[in-house]
């Protein structure tokens, strides 16, 4: 049973890593113009994938995003290496997970997401965007990433993650509404 759990966990990590990497590439293709500095965007659509993967797959989702971010940073961020690269990947993967942990502790979100409300989901998106921006920028500030300014870059990153997460969730809702209205008369 333990072995099966481990295999399923590994598959979840692989799936989330692959889809997060694809999401990042899509972001580069479609929203490159929103880039503030490399790694910071005013609109970051894969933020929605972080919300989805961490809420659905929990720690496996966080590890998947962490793994994908290492690959992404190796491919696209030549100035990141060593501990800074690992910390950036950890901020990317575990920012949402820490936000989830915090909201679980506060009783906003149950472990199995039972009774999750739209308000809870939006709260999670806000807290995640704040943690993600904070973890990234503090890591870059401590390790003196070139061209990074904590007090300036934290805002576009927060706004980009929040907007990306909201766009993703509302896009998903649009799809749900559209799929329902196929069977319903237009009202």
């Amino acid at each position, binding site marked *: *049973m333990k072995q*099966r*759990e481990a295999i*399923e*966990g590994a*598959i*979840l990590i692989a799936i989330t890593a692959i889809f997060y990497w694809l999401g990042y590439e899509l972001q580069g293709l479609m929203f490159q113009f929103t880039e503030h500095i490399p790694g910071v965007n005013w609109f970051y659509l894969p933020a929605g994938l972080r919300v*989805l993967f961490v*809420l*659905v*797959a*929990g720690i*496996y989702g966080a590890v998947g995003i962490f793994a994908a971010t290492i690959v992404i940073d190796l491919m696209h961020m030549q100035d990141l290496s060593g501990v800074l690269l690992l910390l950036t990947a950890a901020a990317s993967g575990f920012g949402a997970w820490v936000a989830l942990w915090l909201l679980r502790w506060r009783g906003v979100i149950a472990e*199995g*997401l*039972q*009774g*999750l*409300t*739209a308000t*809870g*989901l*939006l709260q999670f998106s806000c807290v995640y965007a704040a943690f993600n921006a904070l973890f990234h920028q503090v890591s870059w500030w401590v390790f003196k990433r070139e061209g990074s300014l904590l007090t300036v870059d934290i805002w576009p990153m927060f706004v980009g993650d929040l907007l990306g997460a909201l766009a993703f*969730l*509302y896009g*998903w*809702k*649009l799809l*749900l*509404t559209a799929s329902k*209205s196929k069977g*319903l*008369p*237009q*009202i």
Partner: protein
Amino acid sequence: MDTHSPFKSAYLRFLQLVAAVDEMSGLDDFDANEKALFDSLCLRWSQGQAMTVREAISQTSLGSAATLHKRLKRLIAKQLIVATHEGQDKRTKYLAPSEKEQAYIDWLSSKMQLVEAN
């Protein structure tokens, strides 16, 4: 059910997440409050009487008059109901079913028949 399985727990969480996303406001065409008002109008039509705007906004069990008036305006804007007046008297407006509303009722009826048949 074995909820220790990462796949199963991920699937169950996904279902919860879908419900939460579905609940998000802002894009709904027809929310639960509007539907409650709409249902009360449908019930009255089924008895062969059209409700007046005054009667519709006086249903305190559904909300205050101001709130119900807003909902009524939204239902009219969505062309689910139409406000008409009889003869020369333009002071009393009656709420009549629209073609869209009829289609909606027909659709609901067909679904209920389907459930009954099964």
